[in-house]
């Protein structure tokens, strides 16, 4: 297959960026989007040009490193699928494909398709953790967790922190990301002691770096972990709960 790639090139955070056009003539349907970039980069190196910088690591959809806008859509044409599991078979022979970094004010470009997603970690750092030191935990069977409760917590814990939800959002909101973490921890009885303070601090940090949510729902369409929109509702609910209770838990 022949594909024409319009790739955003930007030397560093302060340099201006621009699109450059490349052609890959021997793409194959079973290639992933990232393997297509590997192919392109091999070609660029042979030509003595600088390869395209992009992030990827596990290439199994779990580390959350990869992510780019493909034709204006985070990760690519297939819904709920990370860039590393998008395949060339989604495109037609002769297609023109536009590759850009995840676009969001909260994610400055580092180089080419690589962005800085540390704003997500600041939300976690603000309170997305549990205050239990090593060695002090009670027996894990001392608190029972219903099968369905554990499964529901897992549905939200599946978030891989890729930031596609933010890039998909017209407002640049991180509600899906934040909500996933808040919900995951709020559902588990063993982590509930800080439920209220956690909600307050995470939401405050989120609002500092990211835009507000207008419930467009674009985030849930691109989320590779399939985090449901109810994570967003949970943010408001947990915040309200914390406000009304005015307690740590």
């Amino acid at each position, binding site marked *: 297959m022949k594909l024409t790639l319009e790739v955003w090139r930007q*030397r*560093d955070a302060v340099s201006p960026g621009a699109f450059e056009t490349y052609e890959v003539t021997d793409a*194959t349907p*079973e*290639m992933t989007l*990232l*393997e297509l970039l*590997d192919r392109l*980069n091999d070609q660029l*190196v*042979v030509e*003595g*040009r*600088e*390869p395209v*910088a992009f992030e990827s*690591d*596990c*290439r*199994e*959809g*779990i*580390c*959350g*490193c990869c992510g780019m806008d493909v034709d204006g859509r985070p990760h690519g044409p297939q819904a709920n*699928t990370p860039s590393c*599991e998008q*395949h060339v078979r989604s495109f037609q022979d002769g297609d023109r494909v536009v590759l850009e970094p995840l676009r969001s004010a909260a994610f400055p470009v580092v*180089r080419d398709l*690589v962005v*800085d*997603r*540390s704003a*997500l*970690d600041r939300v*976690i*750092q603000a309170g*997305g*953790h*549990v*205050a*239990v*030191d*090593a*060695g002090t*935990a*009670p027996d*894990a*069977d001392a608190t029972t*967790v*219903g*099968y369905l409760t*554990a499964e529901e*917590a*897992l549905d939200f*814990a*599946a978030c891989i922190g890729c930031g596609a939800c933010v890039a998909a959002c017209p407002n640049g909101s991180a509600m899906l990301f934040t909500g996933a973490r808040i919900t995951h921890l709020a559902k*588990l009885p*063993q*982590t509930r002691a800080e439920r209220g303070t956690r909600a307050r601090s995470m939401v405050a940090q989120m609002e500092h770096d990211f835009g507000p949510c207008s419930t467009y729902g674009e985030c849930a369409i691109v989320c590779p972990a399939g985090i449901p929109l109810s994570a967003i509702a949970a943010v408001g609910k947990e915040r309200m709960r914390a406000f009304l209770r005015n307690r740590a838990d």
Partner: protein
Amino acid sequence: MTPRPEATSTATTLGPDDVRTVGTPVDGHVPDVAPDLAWDDRRLHYDLVAPANRRRFTVIVVGTGLAGAGAAAALGELGYQVECFTLHDAPRRAHSVAAQGGINAARARKVDNDSLHRFVKDTVKGGDFRGREADAFRLAQESVRVIDHMNAIGAPFAREYGGRLATRSFGGVQVSRTYYTRGQTGQQLQVAGADALLRQVARGTVTLHTRQEMLDLVVADGRAQGVVVRDLVTGKVRAVTAHAVILATGGYGNIYDKSTLARNSNATAAWRAHRRGAYFANPAFVQFHPTALPLMSQWQSKTILMSESLRNDGRIWVPLRADDDRAPQDVPEDERDYYLERRYPTFGNLTPRDVASRAARERIDAGYGVGPLKNAVYLDFADAIARLGKDAVVARYSNLFHMYQQATGDDPLSTPMRIAPGAHFAMGGLWSDYDLMTSVPGLFVGGEVGWGYHGANRLGANSLLSACVDGWFTLPYAVPSYLAPLLGTPALAPDHDAVAESLDAVRSRTGRLLSTGGTQGPARFHRRLGEILYRSAGVTRTPEGLAEGIADVRALREEFWQDVRVTGEGDVLNQELERAGRVADYLEMAELLCVDALDRDESCGAHFRADHQTPGGEAQRDDAAWCRVSAWESPAPGATDARFVRHDEPLTFQAVPLQTRNYA
């Protein structure tokens, strides 16, 4: 494909004596008590640092996976100052995140006759008696509270309907001791650990440095006292000094290029530490995971791993007839060879990984492989679906099935999966003593970067456990004991000669990579190195193949330094430069890997030598000669004798007597 250089004519004459000498033995410092009492005894004798003095000590932790995040967080919780480095943009991205199956623990809560001693027996036997028995006991003992801790900090372990923790069984054992969270156990443990680390960052006990890569170790006065790191975004190279250094940088399986590992996993930090004096133990022991996806195309970047929990319900088979081109559903039951069930009726599809990988490789090489490239075997769920119903099977493995379908376009519910052995977990690593300290005082290891526990082969679900135990529950005891006598000693001065020397070494190496001006990018060298290693040091090894491999690696390394092309500059994010540095280290390490495999004149675990097998085709250990660890020292640059030096640590087994592994 680029043609590979022909092996030199002398290659086939290379013997172990041509490539190594034998040096003085190393001491594992195992307490002189029965192995099951060793950890209690050692903890009692460890020195302590008083709470008020802990902040006077700085500890460097490199890596933020399960071991690194655990060690950094635990030491931070105790009050030490921790400088923590990761090459990722966030700690959660460490490769521990990708482990799927589960985490073992010797909790023995059921009545299936599991126990702490049985855990040790399975672990030692699974490792084919090439690990330390006392280490396995420590692992078992601390495993009990790992589950409690990870549960408490937010990992949502699978639960039974009554609300208690659920367990499942895994390859290599006959009891149910594996705790799990769907097929995302690594992810859930990693995220919980990384978040616990961020809690310490918020408290100010840990300073986290993201997108920074360790490129050298600072050794001064015979102690590890710092690291040299490169900021991957600005290219700035700097040294950071401390009282102790912990490496938790993962395994080196990516040396094979096509592996189940994340693309950024590398051995550079470990290898640079090795070049500064840390012995490298058993590099030949690399596990080939039996349930990786086979290579399907030239540009495929890795062999994606499917959790081996699939082997609980999937049956592995190939057609009885070689070169059978029929679709799997067209092969009748009596024309299928369920070769694991045939050869190992007791364990069947749950035989340990090395056994399953070798059996698959044997069938594929004999012409029974399936798939377009005839390089795979089938993993079939038809029976499980018939027995349990589709819904139950999907509930157990949904995300793995989804992942397989994403990767291949095939639906495993209607057609069997195709799987093949792929380079996976490194049992070898930096040699460490019972306290996880390497041969360089002050340099500790945690998790896969070290050689501990696994011997020649690793049981499923023991890797997450060993990383968690090292990070959360072993290093926090061992490192303070090392620090205690150093109270009042400041961290190494930044202008010390050793710091300047390490900085210069990194700068000149980086400069050399950028200025070589060749024609081939580092990725091509990595691919060719992988081909050499799969061929000469893969699932089955021969002395001739290994000798050829050593010659091929040397030739490729020479070509690399003549002809590598690293585009771009050093003062900006430059992934080619990162890759080139890592490939350069792999090109050095690969030679040692082959030397170790050539030298170890026996079969054991993942190291299968075709010249050492039983009449039935099983691995033939040589305990009289090889019941020991090979801890390697590389020749100094420019040394007159360019041979590697092997330091032996003899192994003894008291609680689990030496026996032939038998899974039939």
